[in-house]
């Protein structure tokens, strides 16, 4: 499949996402320059981390006016999978493709460290290769990742099962001490109602190789590759998967995790063995 990676002038994780997609996953990858209204045939679009236009006003506030974002919005409306990472997440919020906003971190300081994420929903194209409840160890690196939404909006987001990743302790328990930025409901990752647009503050592209200290980010990339493989046209497949509840997936996967999963998503076993080997690494 082909990854399209948007490049705003202040993007600085664009090469990292490109490297993960092409060199680690062995997929096609193309950079999408922000001034070009052209997705170059991408099957999935990544809005990478960075500080798109300097972000002196608000993170992501200017990027939504870029020509590329018009195309990304249309792509998302057609059901195309879009992943915003860090600043990309902030851009999705500013563009209204995802609900809510980001505040400065509780403690007001930038934080770069590995955190633990509990996978809440697996019926999105970016979490389908994970187990519900699985704990992923993936780094964050941001100063404004304190997710905020008014309480009504927050209730609606929760009711729609749009929270797909939460900050947790290493065992997957929610605990404020393990929430690195003060995010409401410990929200680390979110999808839209149609479940094809996902934003997450942590950086899965920084956790795809054992040499870098974790391979748990592969779960995110393997999900999208798996979702694409199981259908010629990603969008109808994605809608089907949206209908399957997380609970059903969990039940189906539980008894013999790797086998069952391997049949359902060809890519899954790869993701899982990668995670296991991370656990073993000395």
């Amino acid at each position, binding site marked *: 499949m082909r990854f399209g990676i948007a490049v705003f*002038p202040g993007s600085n994780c664009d090469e*990292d996402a490109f490297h*993960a997609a092409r060199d680690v996953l062995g997929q096609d990858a193309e950079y999408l320059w922000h001034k070009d209204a052209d997705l170059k045939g991408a099957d999935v679009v990544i809005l990478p981390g960075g500080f798109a236009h300097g972000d002196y006003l608000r993170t992501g506030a200017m990027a939504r006016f870029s020509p590329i974002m018009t195309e990304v919005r249309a792509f998302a409306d057609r059901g195309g999978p879009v992943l915003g990472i860090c600043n990309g997440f902030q851009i999705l919020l500013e563009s209204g493709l995802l609900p809510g906003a980001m505040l400065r971190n509780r403690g007001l*300081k930038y934080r770069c460290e590995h955190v633990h994420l509990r996978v809440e929903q697996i019926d999105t194209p970016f979490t389908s290769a994970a187990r519900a409840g699985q704990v992923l160890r993936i780094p964050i690196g941001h100063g404004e990742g304190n997710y905020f939404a008014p309480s009504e909006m927050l209730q609606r987001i929760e009711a729609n099962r749009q929270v797909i990743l939460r900050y947790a302790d290493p065992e997957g328990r929610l605990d404020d001490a393990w929430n690195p930025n003060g995010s409401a409901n410990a929200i680390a990752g979110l999808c839209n109602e149609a479940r094809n647009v996902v934003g997450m503050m942590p*950086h899965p592209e*920084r956790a*795809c190789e054992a040499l870098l*200290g974790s391979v748990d980010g592969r779960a995110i990339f393997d999900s999208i590759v798996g979702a694409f493989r199981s259908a010629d046209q990603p969008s109808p497949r994605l809608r089907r998967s949206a209908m399957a509840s997380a609970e059903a997936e969990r039940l189906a996967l539980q008894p013999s995790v790797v086998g069952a999963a391997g049949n359902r998503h060809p890519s899954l076993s790869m993701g899982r063995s990668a995670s296991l080997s991370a656990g073993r690494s000395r």
Partner: protein
Amino acid sequence: MIDPPVLERHGLTPDEYDRIVQFLGREPNPTELGIFSVMWSEHCSYKSSRVHLKTLPSDGPQVLQGPGENAGAVDIGDGLAAVFKIESHNHPSFIEPYQGAATGVGGIIRDIFTMGARPIALLNSLRFGPLESRGTRRLVEGVVAGIAGYGNSIGIPTVGGEISFEPSYADNPLVNVFCLGIARASDIVKGVASGAGNPVYYVGAKTGRDGIHGATMASAEFDEKSADKRPAVQVGDPFMEKLLLEACLEVMRTDALVGIQDMGAAGLTCSTTEMGSRGGAGVEIDVALVPQRETGMTPYEIMLSESQERMLLVVKRGRENEVERIFDKWDLHAVHIGQVTADGMLRVKDRGQVVAEIPNRALTDEAPLYERPMTEPAYVAEAQKLDLDALDCLAEASTLEDLGALDRSAKAFALHSVADGRARGLQPGDLNSVLLSILGSPTVASKRWVYRQYDHMVRTNTINPPGLGAGVVRIKATDRALAMSVDGNGRYCYLDPYRGAMLAVAEAARNVACAGARPLGATNCLNFGNPERPAIMWQFARAVEGIGAACRALDVPITGGNVSLYNETDGRAIYPTPTIGVVGLLERADHVVSRRFQEAGDAVILLGDSRGELGGSEYLKVMHDLVRGMPPALDLDVEHRLQTLLVTLAAERLMRSAHDCSDGGLAVTVAECCFDTSRIGVEISIDRVQVARESRMNVCAALFGESASRVVVSVVPDDVIAVLERAAAADVPARVVGRTGGERLRMGVGGQIVIDQSVDDAERVWSTAIEQYVAKRVA
């Protein structure tokens, strides 16, 4: 004739003024005077230091670019070059910590990409006064936030560094920043202007009145009026720098460029002059064409502004459109402000009218050069005396205040054991309090509070993140990795600048070797007081001699660097502080080694000899508030053999962890090997040393002495024989001192356990000390 007060404001002596008149054959006009003043400032001309710097070794088959360019470069195989340099931003950081530090980072990044290299890693070396002071905490927070704000935004990881705290830096903090980039060896770009008629372009931020005379400020001492110098500090814009970085690298991929230089210290003046001088040409510009942020700027102000994020380019004639198109793509405006000439003059015009005309050579090669007088200061002989017999090893840790950062339960336990120890002689655990006090000292304690504010993972190359020893980044598309470390020890250099400087080189190179990398080259940042004082000049000269000796013996040529003098306030100078950055090459990235023990049951081997040297140690400082004695002796041959051995052991995958013994000695080193490991404990047993009459002091010397050329490695039991054999063959002392396992730190001296402490408690003290100090501000 210009008034003496005007000369003084420009930092020029009457003699220097006479020299200017001689060069010009007339009196300079005010613009010319300003240009001379910045180019002849210590910061730009190195007039006091040059005679000494020339003695440093800078050659070697691996050196692709030595001193004199924007940065140095070494060959790292695969046709690639590592381009790196360290630079100081001390004076601005004291006056305005956030912007001072941020623009320091911006400046060193520009030096690297100017060479055609993509910057891939940053390090920093910071020195502050004691953290107990509110003023220090404000500086620390500002400097760290500034480094983070700039580096994180532009997307270059800060992969390591060092910080220490000493009263001598209270009013003169040191902010030294190191940057490393990668270029194709064949594509290194130089800062030259050549080819008469080639157009000169200005690109980047507009010129404002900020930073005028920044270089002159950095060439004078501070006094009570220093806070008024704030307008001389520049303001950084990392977004602009990101655009410049990408656009300049894209321009360099064409062959339309002749040369390029950033406008750092002394701005447009320095870049035009230096480029012309290097190319043996002249440069002519019209300041009216320079994009300006403010109205009514004079030629003087435009030439001397140190506004950030600006570059000067010389482009091949006929290729202008190509270059302009690339800058347009990045929404940057490249402005044609002049051209290269053949006459070797810096000619500045304002709307066509010549306002300054000076031979380039007068500003660069012919700048004043001083062999300043030097005298060994009186304090040295006195401070080198150390009477260990006069000390009681437990005496100082008998009150709560002495235990500073420890939490309550640790304190209670420590005090209890101290009282006990007095009554009945040493028992297991009696030296726990000493170990905990040193682990909680800000200089030794974990710097996590600092480095988690730095994005150290962006670019997905960081395989040894901060806190684990040297910073290590892999080189994508090759098997290789680069290790880098910056080190310095002001206390050692204060006691003996020659030995202290050698130790700094050795430690930086040793840290790189501990990661498994072969040291290739070095860069230095020399932070000293006022060179017009003979005592300071003596410190400087001795330190440079020490650096030279160590670099020659360890085969790490100096490829560039920076000198920062006048680090004084009201006549009180900082400790002489040479900071050394060393870069090394790891043939296989996946062979990288960190300080952490890997598994219980491994053997712990000490490479090198312990001689119980406590002079200038962290132990003396923390427990006895003393900065005395001789710094540890250093045998450069032993050091070189040790480093070669480390590289071999890593390449053969024989060592699972390696950690250099430095501040706090063996006990602290071994404890640190246990931290961040999911609680792997250790038990070691070492020999007594005989350095004092009191037996307890001998025990402390064995545990906390800082003898150089020592490394703690852990080894799978099956490999112990192989490691000892390799060490014997390399003529490096090596002995098995213990094994990993359990959840406690147990350390015995001469057969008696004197430290017995849970890893958890020790790690809590070590990992939270700095946070606790910083939190005090709110309390």
